[in-house]
């Protein structure tokens, strides 16, 4: 079975641009979460969606937004990119409840 897939794998942008990252969850998983992992740190929670509704938001500015589609895939959008947005962006899916989250390999975003 396919795991969580994320696209693109790598992305280079310049300051002020906008970016959209995509995530396809494991089949049957209705919950999708997004995390930002800066080099040398643990992942920081950005958003969680369940059944297309936002269930949680981390301490990130309004430049960050996300949505979940009827097929449970998800997009993360970041506007007005800053140098500090350079990071590995991870998507995780789960069945919900007490079940563990399963992560994709991430999108490496570099801001020049």
């Amino acid at each position, binding site marked *: 079975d396919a795991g*969580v897939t994320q696209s693109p794998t790598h992305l280079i942008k310049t300051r002020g641009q906008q970016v959209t990252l995509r995530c396809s969850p494991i089949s049957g998983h209705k919950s999708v979460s997004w995390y930002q992992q800066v080099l040398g740190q*643990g*992942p920081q929670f950005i958003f969680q969606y369940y059944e297309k509704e936002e269930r949680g938001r981390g301490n990130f500015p309004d430049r960050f937004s996300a949505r979940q589609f009827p097929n449970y895939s998800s997009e993360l959008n970041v506007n007005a990119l800053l140098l500090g947005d350079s990071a590995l962006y991870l998507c*995780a899916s789960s069945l919900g409840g007490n079940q563990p989250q399963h992560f994709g390999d*991430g999108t490496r975003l570099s801001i020049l």
Partner: protein
Amino acid sequence: AQSVAQPEDQVNVAEGNPLTVKCTYSVSGNPYLFWYVQYPNRGLQFLLKYITGDNLVKGSYGFEAEFNKSQTSFHLKKPSALVSDSALYFCAVRGLSSGSARQLTFGSGTQLTVLP
């Protein structure tokens, strides 16, 4: 607010020796606790979880973890380390209350190096 501390940035152990990676947590109420492993240029891979019940939890690849409520700890252990266990290990906690406490909070990670 919930938090996780991994006090060791780096742990070195000889192949065949037992290993321990330490984790302490802070959360309101009963915790859900998780261990994940990350290999270079990859996402996080689930190892094991504690929800309730037996304090010793067994997971993937021979890893286990011991939940200690009085010490608010959830240390990861393996009886005999392999060189292939070398990776970055993350402890995470999730609370049971509503709102943001239900989100996963990760520690800063511990780099495990198993020496041949």
